[in-house]
């Protein structure tokens, strides 16, 4: 797809960047102590902290990735929203108050509060860095994805802009500036997303997604073909690749008319075939890509997303008009929506990716099974699905950049209340994601080659002003989350490793200086990673970050809080096993095999989500090692009684 840059979007983005930089420099003058730098002085109001939680948590994965997944896979994409939100209940009921009571600046502080163990300090710091980097990569990639439609610049420029701005935010005022950036971003995200959803409902559902009569939607054609002497014949077209070609074997044909080649999906009809128009991208041996047979700039590749039929009370209608939130889902359920399948055809040195229409009942879209294989699934498929949902549930309360927000409030009650505000804000946003995703699915705005832009492009269908606001906000979303991740990582390096593990005994000012230098180094690494991981799916990596956090951190946190016999050796071993087992299983998973250029079915393990194995392995390790080391290690008093 070819995007047109909006000066308004650029202006808003520049304004937001200047605003957060000004705020950071203003707060920097008041941030001179380690407590101020790492924990914003511990005096942030619980409501502000709750919205900042939302700003921290609702990352590019939530805003871009989930909306994109719902736009192309329906309910299965929304299950990520449900899983992420459910994880906050672990945080509220089990982790929030003890974390506030036991920790100081970092997640490691709380784990090590009863032991003063070098092994825990080292393992927890490494775990923090690994989880934060896993989370960081998709955020930085998301920044690169956004910069093209927003500023008209290449991927690496977006990554560099975010990296540099965030490094300045964190290196100036640490957690203080990060908190307010996240607060503003969280609040704006909620307000603007609500406006877009309200407009989607006002527009309603229709079979011609012409975006309020402002933009004509490509009318996908059907043709009739006959077979004569074993050859396909289509009136008005020349057959370039017929039934015997590689295209034909895959269920497609390639036709030409007026010098333009098009690909069509073959469907057997009473006489001959019905041909249904498809979209295709051909990648040549030299890396050149043609979109529907022409360079991208020619605009021959169309946005997709339309309803084939809407049925109300047994009658077909073309347009519902304005609908309420429940009526929207009800009407959607009774509609037939055109989704898009994907197939690859290799001819010589070039590979063609074909996107073909799949009319699907709305009720089928609003139930699981389009992305996750749950229908007629093998035990392994079900295991993979349950393992992913387990990782989402257990991961939230183990993300270091989320946990450190508990140190910015003055009391345990404030920690609890801010979590409840976060649950309200995040839960509301996740309800909105369903409407944003389904809105994109039915309004002809999806770039089928990259669904991450579905939400901003949905906003564009309501006018360039809203697109400008949503796009610059999406960029701000990345800023908020990445700044939290860099604070967490800088704390792990400067506070956990340098000050505690290596025993450098820094002064208060030295700790702040070490934190700032660490932030700059981590910012540079983040930029590098964002550039080399260009093209990866945004939500995919966040799922991994959750799996690693849930496996390495959560068993240690919960066992320290609720099992008196946990020892330092057991906790350190548990983190090590959780970290290595989850990482190891990810690295030999089918998804990674594809990244290595190998066939997924050749991967040593047949599942992608490791949590259902690595979490039990981590817990088991903690129990066994703690029981073995009972006499050597210090017993942990029940944290609840501390």
């Amino acid at each position, binding site marked *: 797809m070819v995007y047109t840059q909006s000066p308004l979007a650029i202006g808003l983005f520049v304004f937001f960047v200047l605003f957060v930089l000004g705020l950071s420099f203003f707060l920097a003058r008041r941030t001179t102590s380690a407590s101020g730098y790492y924990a914003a002085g511990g005096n942030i109001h619980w409501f502000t902290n709750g919205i900042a939680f939302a700003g921290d948590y609702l990352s590019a994965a939530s805003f871009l990735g989930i909306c994109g997944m719902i736009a192309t896979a329906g309910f299965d994409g929304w299950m990520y*929203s449900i899983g992420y*939100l459910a994880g906050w*209940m672990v945080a509220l009921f089990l982790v929030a108050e003890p974390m506030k009571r036991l920790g100081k600046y970092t997640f490691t502080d709380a784990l090590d509060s009863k032991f*003063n163990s070098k092994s825990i300090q080292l393992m927890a710091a490494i775990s923090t860095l690994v989880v934060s980097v896993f989370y960081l990569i998709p955020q930085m990639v998301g920044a690169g994805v956004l910069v093209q439609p927003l500023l008209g610049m290449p991927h690496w420029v977006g990554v560099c802009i975010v990296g540099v701005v965030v490094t300045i935010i964190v290196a100036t005022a640490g957690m203080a500036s990060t908190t307010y950036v996240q607060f503003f971003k969280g609040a704006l995200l909620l307000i603007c997303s609500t406006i877009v959803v309200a407009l989607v409902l006002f527009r309603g559902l229709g079979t011609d997604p012409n975006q309020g009569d402002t933009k004509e939607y490509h009318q996908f054609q059907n043709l009739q073909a006959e077979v004569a002497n074993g050859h396909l014949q289509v009136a008005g077209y020349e057959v370039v690749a017929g039934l015997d070609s590689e295209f034909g074997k895959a269920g497609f044909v390639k036709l030409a008319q007026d010098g333009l080649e098009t690909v069509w999906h073959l469907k057997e009809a009473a006489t001959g075939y019905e041909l249904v128009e498809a979209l295709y991208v051909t990648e040549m041996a030299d890396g050149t890509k043609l979109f529907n047979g022409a360079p991208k700039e020619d605009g021959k590749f169309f946005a997709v997303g339309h309803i084939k039929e809407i049925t109300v009370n047994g009658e077909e209608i073309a347009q519902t008009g304005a609908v309420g939130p429940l009526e929207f889902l009800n009407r959607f359920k009774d509609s037939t929506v055109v989704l898009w399948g994907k197939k690859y055809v290799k001819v010589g040195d070039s590979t063609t990716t074909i996107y073909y229409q799949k009319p699907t009942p709305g009720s089928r879209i*609003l*139930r699981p099974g389009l992305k996750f294989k749950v229908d007629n699934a093998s035990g392994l498929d079900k295991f993979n699905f349950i393992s992913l949902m387990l990782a989402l549930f257990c991961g939230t309360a183990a993300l270091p950049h989320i946990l450190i927000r508990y140190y910015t409030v003055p009391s345990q009650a404030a920690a609890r209340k801010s*979590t409840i505000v976060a649950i309200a804000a995040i839960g509301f946003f996740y309800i909105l994601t*369903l409407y944003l995703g389904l809105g994109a699915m039915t309004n002809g705005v999806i770039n089928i080659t990259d669904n991450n832009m579905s939400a901003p492009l949905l906003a564009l269908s309501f006018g360039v002003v809203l697109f400008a606001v949503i796009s610059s906000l999406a960029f701000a979303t990345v800023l908020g989350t990445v700044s939290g991740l860099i604070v967490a990582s800088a704390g792990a390096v400067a506070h956990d490793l340098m000050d505690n593990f290596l025993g450098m005994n820094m002064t208060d000012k030295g700790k702040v200086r070490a934190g700032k230098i660490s932030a700059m180094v981590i910012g540079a690494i983040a930029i590098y990673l964002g550039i080399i991981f260009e093209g990866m799916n945004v939500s995919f990596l966040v799922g991994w970050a959750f799996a690693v956090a849930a496996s390495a951190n959560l068993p240690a946190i919960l066992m320290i809080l609720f099992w008196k016999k946990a020892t330092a050796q057991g906790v350190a071993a548990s983190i090590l096993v959780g970290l290595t087992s989850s990482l190891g299983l990810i690295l030999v998973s089918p998804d990674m095999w594809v990244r290595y250029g190998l066939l997924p079915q050749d991967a040593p393990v047949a599942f992608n989500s490791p949590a259902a194995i690595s979490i039990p392995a981590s817990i088991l390790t903690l129990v066994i090692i703690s029981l073995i080391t009972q006499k050597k290690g210090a017993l942990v008093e029940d944290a609840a*009684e501390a």
Partner: protein
Amino acid sequence: MGHGPAVKLGKDNAAAYKSKIGISMFIVYTLTYFGFVVINAAYPALMEKVYFGQTLAVLYGFFLIIFALVLAVIYNHFCTAAETRLN
């Protein structure tokens, strides 16, 4: 060692009580969540059934999000009352 809270906290006599109700509510929500996961994995067709004009999948999803907030508010109510009573 640089542990301990960033701000000085008073002793919380309600901590044990709050922990107890937190665990109880956690169990309730966890069972509800994994009920959702198990139905999705084992009986996905059931999720397509329509009740009150919506698929069961959508209803259950909305319920999980709203139930989370309701439980959170109830939990906060009991915790705040305990803090007032015991501290």
